[in-house]
Every structure is written in structure tokens, then in C-alpha cells.
């Protein structure tokens, strides 16, 4: 009886670990800066004497019906493919509501408010792992109109375009812009999804492409050039990255005594126990190494989405 129980337990354990699922990236459609600028959906502010413009997504979603239709069509197609997108308009609304709720929340007995560091505040923006950046304009030749359409899938961490579809539709005398836009979405989405699929295939084969930053607090008296058994700390970190990446793939973009930047780091999607990894879990192992003897350096680990982690040395 005992044997049967052990067998069943190991069997279910095997099933559980055997079907590990990779962390699913989040996707969100946003209009491009160029589109917002051409439509006048921009916010202008004075940045220490320099006038700067940033896109006003809230106004764009409140006022542009064509934008809502296009975003909704893309969302619908992606949901049919089993990949529902985050809806930017709803994300913006829930961020505003969450902020208001945080301001109003106080503890019942001690009257404390919600703890929020300046970094936490900065991180409260609409974000996704892959941004589907949307641009279109209407071209006119005499009475004929056509739509030039461009959809780019941009990876938020590597800043690379991982998918794309673009082109100009057939000019029409009579069709309305809304119809031309729908036609553009319908005819371009298959190619877009195919290129996104190729990106995912590459990710499963060669690992997720992420960015790792190493920094130091200025209160820490040592730096990355400190030597341990004839090796600099920076080299020890680099060796760890090399040993733990898929096919040893990474690029060391910057290396000074104060900071290191690793780009195009191909981290595995699963750990040794077949559990899905994000960049924080991945870099956590490096943190453990550095915090343990002989280095014994306290470190602070912060993450940004699935694909970026920063390890700051010298403090917690």
C-alpha cells in the first residue's frame, strides 16, 4: 500500500514538473508618438527651459473613435488566437483609480498610509512586455483615399522590434476611412501574428532575451574591480552570466568600476526543477552567490517586467 502511495505521488510530481509553462508575456496596443502628434494628442511641458512633448494617451482614447475601433479589432483577433491583450484605456483608468484609493487608504488603529517609495511611484505607468505600436494615416489622391498602416511589436526590454506588419491598402472612391482601417487590420494581422510566433519560437529555442544591470550604492566603499583570488568582482559576475545563459549567449555592453550592463542575455525559460523563470528569479541566484562568503556583499534586486533586472551592490 505504502509503495502504491509513493508511486502515485511520484507520478503526479512528474506530471506537474513535466508540463511547466513559460511565463506568458503581456501585450498592449498603443498608438505611436508620430500618430499622436499628427492628431494633436500631445502634452507639452517645460523641462528646465526645454519644451518637451509626450503623447496624451488618455485624450486619444477619449476622443478618437477610429483608434478605439482599430484597437478593439486587434484585441479581438489576438483573443481569438488565445492571446488576449491588455487594454490600454482600461489600464490607464485602473491606474488612476488605484492611485486615488491609495491616497485615501489609512490604517484603522495607527492611521498609517500606503508605503510608496519614489521608485514605486515612477513604476506606476501603463506597461506591457511587448507593446504593439500602431500608426496609420489616410492618403488621398484626388477623390481616392487609401490607408497606410503600420503595426510594430516592440520588446520593452531589448527595445527590438520583434514583429511587424505594414502596407498601404487599395485606394477607394467610396469606402469610409473606418472600413478601410478595418480592412487594413484584417489583412495585416495574420502576418503580424506569424512574425510574433517566430519570435516566440526563437525564445523557446534560445531563451528569453533580457537585460541585466549591475550597479553599486555610493555608500559602499568597494567596487567591481575588487579582487577575490586574483579575479575582479566584475569578472566573477561575468563568469556567472556566461555559465547560466542558454548557449552562453550574452553581450557585455558596459563595464566600469561602478556598473555593468549585460544585454541580449538569453536566460533559460525554466529552472532546474522545471519552474518558469522571470529575470528576477534568474538574477536572484547571482544575488545569492554575491551575498554568500567569500564575497558577503549585501545587494538589492529590483525588476522591470519579465525582461529586466537590476542588482545594486553594497546595501539592501
Amino acid at each position, binding site marked *: 500500500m505504502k509503495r502504491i502511495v509513493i508511486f502515485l505521488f511520484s507520478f503526479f510530481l512528474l506530471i506537474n514538473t513535466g508540463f511547466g*509553462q513559460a511565463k506568458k508575456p503581456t501585450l498592449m496596443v498603443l498608438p505611436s508618438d508620430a500618430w499622436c502628434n499628427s492628431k494633436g494628442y500631445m502634452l507639452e511641458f517645460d523641462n528646465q527651459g526645454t519644451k518637451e512633448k509626450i503623447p496624451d494617451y488618455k485624450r486619444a482614447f477619449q476622443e478618437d473613435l477610429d483608434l478605439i475601433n482599430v484597437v478593439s479589432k486587434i484585441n479581438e483577433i489576438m483573443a481569438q488566437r488565445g*492571446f488576449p491583450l491588455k487594454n490600454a484605456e482600461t489600464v490607464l483608468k485602473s491606474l488612476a483609480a488605484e492611485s486615488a484609493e491609495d491616497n485615501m487608504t489609512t490604517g484603522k488603529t495607527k492611521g498609517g498610509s500606503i508605503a510608496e517609495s519614489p521608485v514605486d511611484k515612477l513604476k506606476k505607468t501603463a506597461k506591457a512586455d511587448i507593446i504593439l505600436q500602431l500608426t496609420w494615416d489616410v492618403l488621398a489622391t484626388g477623390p481616392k483615399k487609401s490607408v497606410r498602416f503600420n503595426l510594430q511589436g516592440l520588446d520593452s526590454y531589448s527595445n527590438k522590434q520583434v514583429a511587424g506588419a505594414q502596407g498601404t491598402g487599395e485606394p477607394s472612391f467610396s469606402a469610409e476611412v473606418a472600413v478601410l482601417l478595418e480592412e487594413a487590420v484584417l489583412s495585416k494581422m495574420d*502576418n503580424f*501574428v*506569424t512574425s510574433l510566433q*517566430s519570435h516566440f519560437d526563437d525564445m523557446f529555442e534560445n531563451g528569453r532575451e533580457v537585460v541585466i544591470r549591475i550597479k553599486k550604492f555610493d555608500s559602499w566603499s568597494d567596487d567591481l574591480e575588487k579582487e577575490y583570488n586574483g579575479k575582479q568582482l566584475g569578472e566573477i559576475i561575468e563568469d556567472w552570466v556566461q555559465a547560466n545563459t542558454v548557449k552562453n549567449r550574452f553581450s557585455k555592453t558596459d563595464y566600469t568600476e561602478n556598473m555593468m550592463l549585460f544585454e541580449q542575455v538569453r536566460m533559460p525559460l525554466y529552472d532546474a526543477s522545471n519552474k518558469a523563470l522571470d529575470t528576477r528569479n534568474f538574477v536572484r541566484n547571482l544575488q545569492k552567490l554575491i551575498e554568500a562568503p567569500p564575497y558577503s556583499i549585501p545587494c538589492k534586486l529590483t525588476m522591470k517586467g519579465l525582461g529586466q533586472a537590476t542588482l545594486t551592490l553594497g546595501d539592501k
Partner: protein
Amino acid sequence: MKKLSGVIIVVVAFLLSGLPTHSAFAQAKKKANKDTEDWRYEVECAGVGKEGTYMIKVWSYSKKPQVAMEQCKKNAVHAVIFQGFAGGGQGCTPQKALTNNPALEQEKADFFAEFFADGGKYMKYVSTANDGAIGAGDRVKVGKEYKVGVIVTVAKDNLRKDLENAGIIKSLTSGF
């Protein structure tokens, strides 16, 4: 009795006269299927179809125009799965194939042999536009063969979904 044997002779002669035609038709069909396997067909976009469909024009070859016309349906589904097609006029956008695995046809040979058999499952996803009527210039005699162009509609969303469910092609979410 003499009368009866006369009738039998007439019936046998009638059946025998039909056999060569039937055999030629079967041979033409076999050749057309071989052409599909050898990618001997041409496909071009014919317009923007309804949502979830592709409207394409397929050119097929056969000594029998009827066979070529019928083979166009099979070739259309074959092209959508393995080849994709170029864009052009009528607001057409080039479309990639449903699979990006170049060896899929060989890897899943058993599945596709059944799928593309005469009267096979491929029929579920394809229909001819204009009731199969072809334009004046769409039936061309090339040497001993006919080259026939037919506009067909392929239900690509359904086709993709069914192939994903059957585990033949990967879905966007596979692995997540």
C-alpha cells in the same frame, strides 16, 4: 435467345467504350494529385475576402479541364498551409503560409495523405467563388494540357484552428 445475346453484346460494348474514358479521367486525377505534391500550381490573391477567409485564384494543370478545376480547391488549401501567396491589386496583401516549418509536410505525411485524399477533409475549408464559373481567359491550352484558373475562398481561420487542435501546427500560445 439470339435476341438476348444481341442485347448482352450491345451492353458489354457500351460498358467497354466507357472504360477508356473513365481510366483516362482517373489517370488525369492521379497526375493532378502528383502535381499538387510537386507544387505544380500557381496561386495569386484575388481580393479581400470576408473575415476569416482568403480569396485566392489558383491555376492548376491537367489534360482534362474538369480535373484541373476540381484540383484548384485542393491546391488552394495546400498553398494556404505550406506556401502562402503574393499580394498585388485589389487591396491584396501578401500572406505567409500557416506553417513556418519547411519539413512539416514530410513530418506529418500520414496526416496530410488522408487530409488531401480525394474527398478528404480539405474540402471543409474551401469553396469556389461565382459557383465555380471561370472567366474567358482563365482556361488556356498549354501544349497538351489545360491551365485553368479558378477563384476560391479558403476558410483560413477554421483551417488554422483545426490544424492547431490536431497538433499539426503550433498555436501562438503553445508553451505558455
